[in-house]
Every structure is written in C-alpha cells, then in structure tokens.
C-alpha cells in the first residue's frame, strides 16, 4: 500500500511538473536585452464599442537611458479582466517597438492598460495608457456626431468628409477638448445643442438641433461628448484599472 501511494505521488508530481514545464515554455519569452523606460508610440486614447477591437493597434517602445530603442526587450500588457491583448507579451523589434491589438471589456468607460518591461536591475518599469470603450448610448451619440456634428467640430478632413472647421469665423470646440467642455454643465450643453449657440450667448453658427434631434438623441450625444473628452469629464464614468 505504501509503495503504491508513494509511486502514485511520484507519478502525479511528475505529471504536474511536466505540464507546468510545457506551459511555461510556450508562454515564456526570454528577453535578450533590457531597457530603462517604456513609452507610448501610438494607439492611446482610442474609442471602440464595448467588447470590440480598437481601430488601431497600440504601439509602445522600450528605450535605454539615452532614449534609443532597445531591441529584444520583453514587454507585457495587462489590464482588468475582460480586456484582450493580441499578443499579450512580445519582444521588441529592431526599432525597440512592440505592437499589440487590444479589445476592451464589456462595460462602457475608460480602461487603463499597462505596458511593462524589466530593466537591467530586474525592476519592473511601467507605462499606462488609457482607452475608451463606448456603450450603447455613446455609440448612438457617435453615429449622430458623424452625421451632424463632425463636419464642423472635427478639424481633420477625411476622403469622404471635408472638414468645414477652417471655414467658420468662430471656431467650434472639438469634442475632445475637455478643458473647455468639462466646464460646461450637462444642462448648459444640452441647451446649446437644443436651442443653438445664441441660447447661451455663443455664436449663431451653432444652429439649434432641438427640432431635428429628439431628447434621447441629444442624451446620446452628451454621453458621447463626455466619454471622449480629454482630460476626462467627471461624468465619463469610472476608469477600469488593475488593482
């Protein structure tokens, strides 16, 4: 009996060890170099519908003390459960960069994602990036924004949509302009959208939309504007970050 027990124990330990080894072999990447800092190259502050991939990948770069890219450093991405990274870790390429696709979680709000690497003294160096997941209401707002607002409020032109921003004597506020927009209360912003600029002593170039959009449309727009503002608005909801 004793012999049987001990052999069983040995066997199970062996199986466990083997499975652990295999697992760690496939998941572990061996860094060949170490950087000093990690910085964002592109891909921060993007918007995507909840649970969907961000339109652009997130690119981070590992630099040495002189600010030059380090190739072969290990970068790991992490965030709250529900956020998916593809890949979740990788070695930096020849220019010191790592590119990953990110799918945000199921709840609307801001998600903080952390890119980390290990420096020469084996300390973890981190960089935090924020991305924005749009819920139903905000997606409704985003659609209305593209249809009605973007043409004037977004200074960037696309092939399909030439921006009217530069043609306006009084420049509209881009919706990401949190410094200004966060200081306008929900009630005031709703009034401007509903009754036009002059309702709050602003430019008549902002027309009244109250007869074109209904209340829930305007509520959706408000929600979108609050969600994308930078710096974040208080009513943008919580930030999902790892504890």
């Amino acid at each position, binding site marked *: 009996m004793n012999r049987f027990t001990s052999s069983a124990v040995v066997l199970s330990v062996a199986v466990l060890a083997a499975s652990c080894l295999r697992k760690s072999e496939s998941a572990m990447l061996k860094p060949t170099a170490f950087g000093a800092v990690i910085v964002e190259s592109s891909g921060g502050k993007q918007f995507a519908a909840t649970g969907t991939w961000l339109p652009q990948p997130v690119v981070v770069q590992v630099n040495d003390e002189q600010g030059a890219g380090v190739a072969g450093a290990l970068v790991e991405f992490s965030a709250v459960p529900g956020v998916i990274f593809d890949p979740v870790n990788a070695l930096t390429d020849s220019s010191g960069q790592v590119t990953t696709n990110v799918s945000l*979680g199921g*709840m609307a709000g801001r998600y903080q994602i952390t890119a980390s690497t290990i420096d020469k003294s084996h300390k973890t160096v981190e960089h935090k990036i924020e991305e924005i997941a749009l819920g139903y209401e905000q997606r409704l707002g985003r659609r209305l924004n593209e*249809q009605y607002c973007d043409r004037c409020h977004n200074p960037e032109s696309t092939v399909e949509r030439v921006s009217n921003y530069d043609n306006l004597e009084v420049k509209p506020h881009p919706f990401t302009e949190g410094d200004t927009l966060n200081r306008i209360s929900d009630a005031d912003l709703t009034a401007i959208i509903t009754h036009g600029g002059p309702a709050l002593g602003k430019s*008549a170039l902002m027309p009244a939309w109250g*007869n074109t959009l209904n209340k829930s449309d305007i509520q959706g727009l408000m929600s979108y504007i609050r969600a994308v503002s930078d710096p974040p608005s208080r009513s943008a909801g919580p930030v*999902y970050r790892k504890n």
Partner: protein
Amino acid sequence: MKERLRSLWQKLFGDSMRAFGVVSLVFLASMAIAPAKNFFSEWRHYQHGYLSIIRNRSDANTLRRHFQGGIQQIWLPELGVVDRCTSCHVGLKEATLTDVAQQPYRKHPMIPHNLDQFGCTVCHRGQGAATTVAEAHSSTLAWEQPILPTKYIESSCGQCHRGPMPGTPQLNLGRNLLSRSGCVHCHAVKLPDGSTMKATDDPPSLSHIADKTTREWIYAWLKDPQAYAVTATMPNFKLSDDDARDISAFLIANSVPVPGDNVTLSAKASGDPTAGASLYGESFCASCHAVQNAAGNIVGGDIGPELTRIGSKLKPEWLQAWVHDPRVYDPPTAMPHYRFNDAQVATLSGFLLAKTDTDLLANVHLDAATPEQLSHGKRLVSDYGCASCHEIAGIKKPENFAPELSRIGSKPITQLIFLAGMQHTLPDYIAGKIKQPRAFASGLKMPQYTFTPAQIDALTTALLALNDRSNSLPPPLAVAAPSESDYQPAGKAGKLMIDLACFSCHRINGHGGDMAPDLTWEGSSVQREWLVQFFKNPETLRPALIRRMPKFNLSDGEVSELTDYIMTVYQSPVVDRDAMPLSGYSQGQIELGKQLFYGKYACQGCHIVDTQADKGYIGPTLTHVGSRLTAAWIYQWMKNPQALRPGTIEPNRAMSDEDARALAAFLISQKSGGKQEVAKK
C-alpha cells in the same frame, strides 16, 4: 484499530438514551443544512456587499429604500423568461450609481428598453433561473446557454427587430454582408416572417463569358480572385492548377455568344493622352468603380467592380460594346447607358484597357482542353456549386447546396466540432468557421473569404440573431423590417430612367440607392429651365462631394422627356408652386431675409451665397439658387426640411412663416448672372 471503533460505538450508541441523543443531534444538524446553504449563498453575499457599498454614499437612504432583499425575479410568461439576475445585480436600475465600477453592482447603461419588461437573458443569454454565478453565466452540463460576449450583443436586438436600426450598426452590417457577400446564395436563411433572405449582390452570368474575357484570365481569377482585384467579393476556392484549368476550359466551351456585344467603331480615340482620364473623371466613373492607387489605397465607389487591372481581363471589342451600351450584354445592369459617341467610346475603352498588370497572366499557359478535362470541369462546376451564384448555361441552380442557417444562433454546442485551442462557445465556432471554413474537416467546400475581423464579428452577430427565440417570437412582439418598394417609373420616360440607371444612385418613392439625393419631390423642388440645363451639363452643387451626377450626353428629346416627367409626376402635395412667385419680392423683404441668413440663422456656416465672403462647405452652394429652386420649395424647406427629404442633415429650425417667407425671398433673388428673371411667369 478494531478495539477503538468498538469503544466509539459503545460511547455513542451504547444504550438507547445515548443512541437517541446522537441520532437527534445528527437529525438537527441535517435540518440546519438547508438554512445554512441559504445563509451562505452567493446572492446573499453579493447583497451584503451591495449594502456595504451604498452605506456611506450621500444617496444611501434612497438606495436602501429601493433595495429588496432575497431572491428577485423578472417573469415574462410570453417570452418564457424567468430571470433572477437582479438578485445579485442589485443596482441595475439605480441611475445614480454611475461611479460604481465593481460588478455585480453597476447600473445598467441606458438602452431604449425597460428592464422589467425585457428581463436580462433575452439580450444577454445565460441561465435566468440560476442563482449561482457559475450556473447563470457559464454553460454547464445541464444548461447550454452561456452569457453572450458583449461584442455580439446587437444580435439580441435582431431577434425581434427584423430591419436595420440606427443603434445597431454591427447587426446592420452583418445582415448586409450576409446578403451582399453571397452567403445566402448557398445557405438558405428563412426569416421568421416566412420570407427568405435575398441576395443583394449581382454575380455576373457566365453563360456568355467567352465574349468578355479569355480562358487565361478565368484561370488566374479562379486561382486567386484577390490577386486581380483586392476588393473582389468572389471567395477563393483554393483550386488546384488542374481544377482551375478544367473549369476555365469548361466555362469557355460552354459560353454562348450574345449578338451585338462587340462593335466596330467609326471613329478613333482622341489623340490627347489625357483625354481618357478626363472623360473617366467627367463621367464620374469613380462614383461606382474603384481603382487601387500607387499607395495601395482603394479610391472610388463599390457599386461596380474594381478596375485596377481591367485591361488584363477584357477583350477590347467587348469593352467597346459595353461602354457603348451595357444593356446589350446585361439588360438589368446597374451601369447607366451613357450616350457616348464612337470617339468617346474609343477614348474611354483605350484608357481602361491600358490598366493592365503584366504579372497577372505571365505564368498562365493553357493548352487546348481535352474532352476529359471539359467533362471534369463541368463536374467541378456542379461540385463547387458555382451555379448557386452565377447563371451558367445548361447547369441548374442547386437547391439546398449548403446547410440552412435559419436557426444557427441556437445550435447546441454538443453538435459542433471545435478546432484545437478554440473556446467551446457558439460565437467562437461561427466566427472561426467564417475565418477558416476549410480547417474544420477535410473535403469541405466552403471557400475562403477575405473578411476583416470587424466584418467577421458583424457576420457572427447577424447569424446569432437567427435563433430559436427569433423564430418562435409571438408575432405581435416582432418589429418588421421596412418593406422595400419596387416602384418603377412609367412610360417612355420611365424606360429612359431605367436605361440611365437613375435608381443605382437616386431613391424615388422608397426605391433605389442612397448615394445621391432622393428625387421623390424633385418636380416641386426645381425650376424646369434649370433641370434642362443640369441634364445637359451637370454643375457641381456640393463642392465637398467626390461623387457627383455624371453627364449622360442626352439628346434634346430625351432631356425634355425626362424633364416633363419629373416636373409632372414628382410633385409634393405640401409644396404649392403657384402660391409663391419666383420674383417680385419687395426689397425690404429681401433685405430682411439677408439679415436672417447671416444673423439669426447663420446659414453661411454651411452655405455660400457671396463667393467673396462666405465659406460654408457643407450644404449646396446657393449663389444661383434663385434660378434653381422654386420659392415654394424653399419656403417649405425652411419650415421643415426633414418632411421634404427624410434624413437630410439640414437642421429643422422650426421657422415662423414670416422668417421662412423672408428667407425664401432673399434666396430666390440669387439668380445666375445674365439670366435675371428668366423664369418669370
């Protein structure tokens, strides 16, 4: 060992009193199991958690008053819903909990439905009656309905809403892709309303293909359609060289010529090397056809096929005949019949034929086909179901070629085969199958599509909406799709409009495309003289648009036929053209209108009246609007633009009669130079 057991037995059951006592204790303990299980249950734990979260909030009293302890349940008999989710998700309906990020306490985001009327599982799936997290959220042995990942949540809207909605772009895209990527040619999708999902793409007939192209091109196309055109919707069937050789041989041998689809031209192409590109531009071919530019970007519309390498595909005589009159070869084509003269036909086809790619056919060398190869080709055409999409002379469209997808969204996962490393869920299976259709078994026929990840998610969303619930929904609860009108204009003008393919871009009475303005009330909107001029030489109304009205080179007779029809038939009942004249407004009224235009309504933000001062670039230029629109139309437009043209982005300003009249007076005074008062009655 035995001694010990015996003494223990003696201690516990030695005499009847002891035995009674011990049995009573055991009985009491077992009686306590049920209340203990209840007391330590997960939902109670979460409810305690909720109470401690709200304790120190400023709105604690209100929240506590709303809170109800114990198992909560939403019961909807007609939907078969018993949802106890709110036992743990206690704060779902609390509007003030916006700052709580922790689950299960977050408030539900705003949706157009009341949670009490719809429950949770109708949209999120999962097991509503369960009272533990694992059973409610995951698929367990007894139940097979895990929580639906958020990225597919719009599929749940599609269970009841049969048509497109503004709030469900992903579902709309998925349904659109199902019908326009060819899926429903092979897979039958019976909709809950009894109809069958119809394909909206228009795969070309292959019955006359030898007139149009060469066997070498067909071979190269079959091997890799996206090598010819990256936007091609034709999927890759991963054919072997021999299979592609035999299918191309069969299609060429099977082709029947169409009389008149090659012409000899009486004129030569223009000697000017830029003439072809100019004519291509002037005719706005790019509104429908795309070309890949040097940077690899696709520029142009997607109504017609991509033309990047068109010169490597078409036979010159066929192209000339097509440019001359596409309806000879394909009567219902979406391509307009431009009235090009022979010189223009030669110039334009010469320009298109120069778009070649020498690499495409460089390595294609085909010998004359043997009878065995031909019959093998014919068998392959049947095996791969080519006739499901394409008309092929002598081959019948196969019935039920691929599995029906009418209830795919409820397929039990026990009936699915998963790939290694794949999550065992239905959405993952569907997405995986669309991504790599042939990876699931050997000998599968479904071809490889080139969908983007977002398109795959959209397709999966649309397919998940085809489930048991959508099929068994009580009819009064379903929201029907808007029925597509099959309006056809009548008479000679109607024939002309079909020939010019007006409906490829314009919508009239609910029928047609959405690229160009809706023309349902066009006769009330414009002045006859302007319309005549516009047909002869379309001017640019909206400078910011890249897709515009082409010049069709119509004869005077055709122009007056069309104009008469439009002016008579497409009249709005709310616009009374005779009520407001086109001229004779007082200077005071015009001046008031001008002030309103620049002041109160700031129209110059989007429109240009004075080319020196105004810069607005969104709406049409209004410099000559007095020669274009009727005063009655402008007046009604000011009062409510969406009533005249649903979906227009012009904001409805709910103007007073007085303001609308003054603005109409001001705008109607903006006539084109030298043509002042031309339309005076």
